[in-house]
């Protein structure tokens, strides 16, 4: 069914507000959430919608994030459309339940506001929280701005509940940089969102008394391995569903998203691979460099889990030097998480680019344009001299 493009309403809203408004339009059956900076505004705003009767949601005010996701798992197993949201320490406290949600194949949707993990305590944005959950079999989509937060939250419902997927989805947005930044966001009419996501058709439904089921049974060594791999295959298969849903949404709104977002990559000789809001800054630098005749490009990764290996290989094929920029570290590892993925993806390529890794912006430190420009400068040097230098470096650090 091909639909005509729909005109939306433009509002000024923060990233958190955009997530909360998408949640209002989704009108989930159950939301169980606990407030934590910088996600608080999502819960606050959504609680107002509940109090004002704008949604039919059962809002469960819990005493912790562990309980929030536990309540979500129960409600989802009972066949409800379920959402929650969290950040940082909250995600850490959910950690145990993350695996219960994905392992039981419960399609829970969760805006996740990226904030660093203590200690030392800090409330600002980096990706150390969600990178700690990267192997929990959740789909992780990272948004560049508030518009994408709104759009992705709506798309996530379709992706999670797709019968080929049946996995929970995290919609990640950068703490403060996106969560608290007032932006121009175009929102669909309520009715369009309702139609796009469709009614909940539960696959797993404990309340269906005519078809009794048991959830959470023991799977010992003779069967556990097969269960785990079937979940891994579903996560892999989610790539095509994420693309399908994004294409349908693109036809409806004119806003197109994929697993990756290449910017001026077709003829790029030097490129940065990055996620989330930093891609915006990087694009601005690329525009400046292009004016100076430098063939620079940006590859933004939108879907970190599942990781879009083919799309990354295709975009980086022919590029001569690439810097992967991580807003998280993996202490003691060869390099940071996105670099490791990109390096693994490129390893099988004969003519692979020279790869370097930068860790930047930990604890919410700003990424000024000059620093991005210095990365491109190094990449140009790598191309002209063939000398790569250290693989992992820290950008904007007072090193000494």
């Amino acid at each position: 069914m091909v639909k005509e493009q729909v005109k939306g309403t433009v509002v000024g809203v923060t990233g958190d507000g955009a997530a909360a408004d998408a949640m209002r339009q989704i009108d989930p059956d159950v939301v169980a959430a606990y407030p934590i900076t910088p996600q608080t505004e999502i819960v606050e705003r959504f609680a107002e919608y509940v109090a004002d009767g704008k949604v039919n949601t059962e809002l469960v005010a819990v005493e912790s994030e562990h309980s929030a996701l536990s309540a979500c798992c129960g409600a989802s197993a009972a066949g409800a459309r379920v959402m929650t949201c969290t950040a940082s320490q909250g995600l850490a406290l959910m950690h145990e339940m993350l695996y219960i949600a994905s392992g039981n194949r419960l399609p829970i949707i969760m805006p996740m506001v990226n904030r660093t993990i203590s200690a030392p305590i800090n409330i600002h944005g980096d990706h150390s929280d969600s990178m700690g959950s990267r192997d929990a079999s959740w789909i992780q989509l990272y948004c560049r701005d508030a518009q994408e937060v709104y759009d992705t939250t709506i798309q996530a419902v379709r992706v999670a509940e797709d019968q080929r997927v049946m996995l929970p989805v995290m919609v990640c947005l950068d703490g403060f940089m996106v969560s608290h930044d007032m932006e121009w966001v175009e929102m669909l009419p309520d009715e369009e969102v309702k139609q796009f996501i469709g009614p909940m058709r539960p696959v797993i439904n404990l309340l269906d008394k005519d078809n009794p089921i048991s959830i959470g049974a023991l799977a010992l060594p003779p069967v556990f391995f097969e269960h785990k791999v079937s979940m891994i295959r579903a996560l892999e298969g989610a790539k095509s569903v994420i693309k399908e849903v994004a294409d349908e949404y693109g036809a409806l709104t004119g806003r197109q998203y994929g697993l990756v977002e290449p910017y001026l990559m077709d003829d790029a000789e030097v490129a940065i691979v990055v996620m989330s809001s930093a891609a915006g800054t990087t694009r601005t630098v690329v525009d400046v460099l292009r004016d100076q005749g430098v063939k620079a490009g940006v590859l933004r990764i939108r879907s970190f889990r599942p990781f879009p290996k083919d799309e990354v290989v295709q975009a980086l094929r022919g590029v001569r030097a690439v810097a992967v920029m991580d807003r998280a570290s993996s202490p003691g590892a060869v390099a940071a998480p996105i670099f490791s993925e990109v390096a693994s993806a490129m390893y099988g390529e004969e003519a692979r680019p020279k790869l370097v890794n930068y860790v930047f912006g930990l604890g919410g430190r700003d990424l000024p344009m000059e620093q991005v420009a210095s990365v491109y400068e190094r990449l140009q040097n790598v191309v002209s001299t063939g000398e790569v230098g250290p693989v992992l470096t820290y950008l904007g650090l007072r090193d000494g």
Partner: protein
Amino acid sequence: MKIRRIENLSELPCVSEVPLGGILSNVGNSAQYRTGSWRTQRPIFKADICTNCLLCWINCPDGSIAVAEGKVTGIDEMHCKGCGICAYVCPTKPTKAMSMEQGGEY
């Protein structure tokens, strides 16, 4: 000593056959699970001493005391885990109608 049966792995579900999320739709299937294979001790029942007080029956965590018409008739050896609770609660003196003995095979 009998050797425990090794599962034939090829009879078990492969990746595409496992149920979504490990959900069981054949509910009540725990009866098929041989918890009796965990046993290192087994209960010995002496019907001639038994007063049929049914303390063993109500305390058995696995419902493994077989009862017919209000009388204990024996042990469900496929499910009895050999915990010894039945023998512990059995009140007959000086000899218990239910006592534990080494050996778990059945």
